C-alpha cells in the first residue's frame, strides 16, 4: 500500500485538489432554496367514496422544493429558466428537514379535511342527502421559531392567555395572537395539556398556524386511501374539493385532463401557493387540457404559449360554477 502510494504520489496530489473542490460543490449547503417542476398526482387514486366513483380527470400538481441547495445544484438550476433559485427566507433557514416534512404532512391532512367539508357542503345544496358534520378544535402550529423546543410542528393550540379557542373563531385567535408581544399558549395533545409562553423577538419570523377541523360524520362515507409520504402541502386543496364534488354529484367530465393548484379555506376562498411558474411548466409537460389557479396569482403568470386553457378562480363556489357551466 505504502509502496503504491509512493509510486503514484504525483498523480494523487494532482487529483486531491479537484476531488476536494468537487466534494465542496456537491456537499456544502448554500443560503439558497430551489423550486423545480415536479409532476401530477391523480386525485382519484387517493380518495374513496362509498358507492361513488371519483372522476379520473383531476390532478394535483407537485413541485420539487429543496433548501438548502448545494453550489452544484445552484449552478445547474441557474441555467434552466424552468427552475427558481431564491435566497432562503428566515423561516426556511430556521426549519429543519424533519420539520419541513411534518409541515407538509400536517397541511396535507388539514387540506384534505377542508376539501371534504367544502365539497360536501356544496354538494348538499344540489343533493340534500349528502351531509357532513364537523367541529373546530383549535389551531395547529405550522411554524414556530426553533428556539421554542417545547413546541412541535402539528401541536394543537386549544387556549390563548387563559381563553379557550372553542370560544373564539380562528380569525379572532389569529388577531389576538398577533396583538400581544407575549402570549400563553395552551397545547393539548392526546389528553396531555401543557402551557408554553411565547415572547416575540424582533429578529425572528412570526409563528404560523392552520385551523384544525375534525370531521365527525359524512354521508356517503369518504376515506383518504393512499397517503404518499413523499408528497405534502396544502396546494392540492382546491382541486381535491372539485374532484370530491364532481364525484358526489356524478358529473361527467369526459376525458378532459384538469390540473390545478390553490389552497382551500373553510370560507371557500382559494389561497396562494408556492412555485406557480414551476406548476405551469409541470402542467405543460404532463399535457393537461385545463389549468385552474388562484386569482391571487394573476400577476405572477409568465407570458408563455400555454397549450392548455387557463381558468382563474377566487373562491370554490366560482370553481364549482365553472365546472357546471363547462361540463353540463
Amino acid at each position, binding site marked *: *500500500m505504502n509502496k503504491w502510494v509512493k509510486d503514484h504520489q504525483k498523480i494523487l496530489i494532482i487529483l486531491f485538489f479537484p476531488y476536494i473542490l468537487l*466534494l465542496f460543490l456537491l456537499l456544502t449547503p448554500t443560503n439558497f432554496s430551489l423550486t423545480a417542476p415536479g409532476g401530477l398526482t391523480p386525485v382519484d387514486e387517493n380518495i374513496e367514496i362509498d358507492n361513488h366513483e371519483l372522476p379520473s380527470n383531476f390532478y394535483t400538481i407537485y413541485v420539487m422544493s*429543496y433548501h438548502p441547495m448545494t453550489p*452544484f445544484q445552484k449552478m445547474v438550476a441557474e441555467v434552466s429558466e424552468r427552475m427558481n433559485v431564491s435566497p432562503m427566507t428566515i423561516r426556511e433557514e430556521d426549519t429543519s428537514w424533519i420539520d419541513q416534512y411534518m409541515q407538509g404532512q400536517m397541511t396535507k391532512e388539514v387540506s384534505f379535511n377542508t376539501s371534504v367539508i367544502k365539497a360536501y357542503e356544496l354538494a348538499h345544496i344540489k343533493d340534500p342527502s349528502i351531509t357532513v358534520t364537523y367541529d373546530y378544535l383549535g389551531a395547529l402550529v405550522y411554524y414556530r421559531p426553533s428556539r421554542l423546543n417545547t413546541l412541535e410542528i402539528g401541536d394543537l393550540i386549544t387556549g390563548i392567555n387563559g381563553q379557550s379557542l372553542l370560544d373564539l373563531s380562528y380569525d379572532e385567535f389569529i388577531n389576538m395572537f398577533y396583538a400581544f408581544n407575549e402570549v400563553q399558549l395552551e397545547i393539548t395533545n392526546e389528553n396531555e395539556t401543557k402551557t408554553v409562553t411565547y415572547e416575540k423577538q424582533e429578529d425572528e419570523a412570526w409563528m404560523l398556524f392552520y385551523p384544525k377541523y375534525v370531521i365527525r360524520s359524512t354521508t356517503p362515507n369518504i376515506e383518504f386511501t393512499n397517503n404518499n409520504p413523499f408528497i405534502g402541502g396544502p396546494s392540492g386543496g382546491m382541486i381535491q374539493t372539485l374532484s370530491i364534488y364532481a364525484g358526489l354529484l356524478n358529473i361527467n367530465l369526459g376525458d378532459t385532463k384538469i390540473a390545478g393548484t390553490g389552497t382551500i379555506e373553510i370560507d371557500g376562498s382559494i389561497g396562494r401557493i408556492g412555485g406557480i411558474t414551476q406548476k405551469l411548466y409541470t402542467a405543460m409537460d404532463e399535457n393537461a387540457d385545463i389549468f385552474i389557479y388562484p386569482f391571487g396569482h394573476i400577476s405572477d403568470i409568465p407570458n408563455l404559449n400555454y397549450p392548455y386553457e387557463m381558468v382563474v378562480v377566487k373562491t370554490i363556489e366560482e370553481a364549482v360554477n365553472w365546472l357546471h357551466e363547462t361540463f353540463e
Partner: protein
Amino acid sequence: MKHLNKWIDQVYKFYHRYRNILKIIDSKVTTKIVLKSVLFALLISLLIVLIPVLISINLFIYNKLDMILSIILLIILTGWGLLFFKFYYTLLKSYEPSLEDVNVKLPMLVEGSLVSFFLCVLGIIVISVIF
C-alpha cells in the same frame, strides 16, 4: 440427467477450488492484515464511488430524471461490491507478498458477485418501494 450430473459435478469442483484457495489465503494472512485490507479497501472504494453518487443525488432536482438516476445509483451500488473485493484482495497481496502466486481472482469474483447481487436486490426493493 447426464447434463445435470455433469453440471452438479462442475459446481462441486468449483466450490472445492474456491474453498482450497480460501484455506491457502487464511493460512498465510493474520487478522491484522485482513483488518488493514478491509479498512483500506473500504476507504478507497468509497472514495471512488462517492463523487458519482453525490452527483446523482444532486441531480434529483430534475424530477424527470428520478428513474434514470435511481438506476445509475443501483449500478454504482452493485459495482461498489465488486470494487471493494478487487481492492481487498489487491491489498491482501500487497501486505502479504507470499500470496503473490495465489490466484485470488476466483474468491474475488465469487465474493464480489455475491455481495453485489445482495446489494442489487436490496436496491431494487428500495426503488420499488419509492416508485
